[in-house]
């Protein structure tokens, strides 16, 4: 294993002093023609890339109000400078949100504003040159699009929007990030990010059915491509193959079983994740999401339920309706789409589930609000339901629950450090350092309240934490899904569901 720098963890999250270029070396692996071509992106950097890049920026300014307004109105108040986990973990000046955005803003000024054209030095305007492009490629791949900065900015300036635009511009001139682009290719080929073909998926689901039968004695089904089911369950594909994700998948299945609601998984749309968002591509987002909506129609389901995945829930909740809606062919009595936590919570309220809290007594639990869920979506009818519903679920299935420091949860939650298309090995150094604020808060409740389980509802968070927590000396068994806890507590066959 490579030699990684694990930052020290202190009692509290402290804002470090600023340094120049501590992370300047860490650029992601570039995409090659093999990945870029199928996406319709140039296979290598185009010859007139400067011109094309500026042209693309101009196009995006006309397409996205967010970009146009946010490039104009930042007052440089500095309120966001200590809000990014990547700045806190790396001290790199370019990881302060305003400074990350400045990488694009300075180019914007140079080519699109009178002040930047006339007095570039006075207003910090820079040419879109080799050096600038290098910085873009590096630092726009050190943003997990977690939107923490936008919570604190007096104008709501969302650096994630700027990162997305930057990645879209870079893709348009043939400068792509291998990880994200390759994964999107797999979705189009095989229906999911992991590239799992149908037979393998079928095999896994059957295996899990046996596993549940063995451990509980109940015949809980995980159906695949079953036409006429009530619900199409769209989970992140990691739920089919990774630990601890798979535990949550079994949890979902048990909830459906217990409620007596038929559901199916689709092999064609076996992926809730949508990396189209990470690369800022509206078209890709739409294309990827279309697989789900098409399947919902083809399988004639009445409801769409989304599994535990942060950015997937953002795309589903906030974008599906716009991208491929209206979803009016679904049962109007239920939110479309519905989050698995909303689904289970609803059943809980209606008394369809019998839960044995003591099954989770070995655990003292805390909850990591995944940023995409926390800051870009809602659950239930009320603002903030995305915080309360998962917590109510957890409290219903276990006896010991405690929140982390309030400055690090709910809308102020810290990213796990691996979101936004950065969950790739070459960025491990960044991922470790970016996790530091979250780890600091976690360690505190581990010490003060003997917490030994961090529940969460994001596939990327799970993958990131299981990899990174051990580097901080925390066992990977520490993390798991909310539905893993549900799975432990649910009493099968007790009083079978209401519908």
């Amino acid at each position, binding site marked *: 294993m490579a030699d990684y720098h694990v930052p020290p963890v202190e009692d509290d999250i402290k804002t470090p002093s*600023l340094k120049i270029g501590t992370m300047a070396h860490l650029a992601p692996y570039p995409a090659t023609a093999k990945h870029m071509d199928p996406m319709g992106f140039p296979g290598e950097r185009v010859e007139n890339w400067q011109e094309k890049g500026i042209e693309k920026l101009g196009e995006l300014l006309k*397409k*996205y*109000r*967010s970009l*146009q*307004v946010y490039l*104009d*109105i*930042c*007052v*440089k*108040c*500095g*309120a*966001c*400078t*200590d*809000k990014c986990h990547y700045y806190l973990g790396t001290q790199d*000046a370019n990881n*302060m949100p*305003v*400074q990350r955005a*400045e990488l694009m803003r300075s180019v914007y000024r140079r080519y699109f504003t*009178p*002040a930047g054209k006339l007095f570039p*030095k*006075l*207003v910090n305007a820079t040419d879109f040159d080799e050096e600038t492009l290098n910085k873009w490629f590096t630092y726009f791949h050190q943003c997990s699009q977690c*939107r923490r900065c*936008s*919570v*604190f*900015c*007096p*104008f*709501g*300036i*969302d650096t994630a929007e700027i990162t997305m635009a930057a990645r879209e511009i870079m893709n348009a001139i043939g400068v792509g990030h291998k990880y994200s682009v390759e994964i999107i290719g797999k979705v189009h080929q095989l229906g999911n990010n992991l590239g799992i073909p149908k037979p393998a998926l079928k095999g896994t689901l059957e295996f899990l059915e046996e596993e549940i039968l063995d451990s509980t004695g109940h015949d809980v089904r995980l159906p695949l491509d079953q036409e006429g089911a009530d619900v199409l369950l769209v989970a992140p594909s990691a739920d089919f193959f990774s630990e601890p994700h798979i535990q949550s998948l079994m949890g979902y299945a048990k909830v459906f079983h217990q409620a007596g609601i038929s559901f199916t998984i689709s092999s064609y749309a076996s992926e809730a994740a949508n990396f189209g968002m990470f690369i800022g591509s*509206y078209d890709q987002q*739409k294309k990827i999401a279309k697989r789900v909506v098409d399947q919902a129609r083809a399988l004639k389901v009445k409801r769409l339920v989304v599994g535990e995945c942060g950015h997937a829930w953002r795309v589903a*909740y*906030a*974008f599906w*309706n*716009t*991208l491929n809606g*209206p979803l009016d062919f679904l049962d109007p009595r239920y*939110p*479309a*789409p519905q989050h698995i936590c909303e689904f289970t919570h609803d059943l809980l309220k209606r008394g369809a589930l019998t839960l044995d809290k003591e099954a989770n007594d070995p655990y003292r639990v805390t909850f990591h609000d995944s940023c995409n869920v926390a*800051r870009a979506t*809602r659950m239930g*009818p*009320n*603002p*903030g339901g*995305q*915080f309360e519903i998962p917590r109510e679920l957890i409290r219903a299935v276990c006896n010991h629950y405690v929140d982390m420091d309030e400055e690090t949860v709910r*809308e102020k939650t810290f990213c796990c450090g691996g979101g936004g298309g950065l969950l790739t090995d070459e960025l491990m150094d960044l991922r470790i350092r970016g996790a530091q604020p979250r780890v600091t808060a976690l360690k505190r409740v581990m010490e003060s309240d003997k917490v030994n389980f961090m529940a969460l509802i994001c596939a990327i968070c799970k993958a990131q934490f299981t990899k990174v927590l051990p580097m901080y000396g925390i066992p990977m068994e520490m993390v798991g899904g909310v539905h893993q806890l549900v799975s432990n507590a649910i009493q099968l066959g007790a009083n079978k569901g209401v519908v």
Partner: protein
Amino acid sequence: MLTFLVYIVLTIFLLGFLSRLFVYARSPAPLKIATTPAPVTRLGVAWRLLTELLFFNSLFKADKLAWAGGLAFHGAMAVVLFRHLRYFIDPIPAFFGPLQIIGIVAGIAMAAALGFLLLRRLVFERVRYISSQADYGVLFLLLAIAMSGLLMDFVLRPNIVAIKTNLMSMWSTVTGLPPLNSAGDVVFLLHLLLVAGLLVIFPFSKLMHAGGLFFSPTRNQVDNPREKKHVNPWAES
């Protein structure tokens, strides 16, 4: 001559400001990107924007010093601007009498708050790092405006009556320079030119934050993407 200057400056400011707002209003918002938790009704959004405008809510969460300095400066500036109406209305409504003292306090507060913001920019490492010459420039310009204003209040009083007559006639006839009979009169001219400078750079600078806030999609969108289909105007269906 001054008449032309004033007309030109006002034209640049108004056209520039409005055309920027027009650009913001015209540019589409393809997706729902409200920073949640967000209001689920229009009225809720109006309240969110109003509180951001009046109290700088988000900034309060982020940075108490910037919040205090920023709110003091903007609040004081609002009072000062309002008080300036007395120079443009004839006859002056009675309630401007007691307002006079509040206006002067606000003037001092504005200068002090600007000084504080400037100090903050110089002292704190991270804020200093992100500041460009232009960021200091605007602060200096505003500070110069505030100081020249206070100078007239306390030290070098210009002939306000003559100046007001001169300015008020400007809307109907072409007038020359206002009277320049004392040092105070010169300070007034300086004050006027500085304000002219501020108005000219306004539409081309970060000062556009004054209008931009209302167009920020993370703040002005209703959180109802499931309940109501948000249409992307440029999507090919």
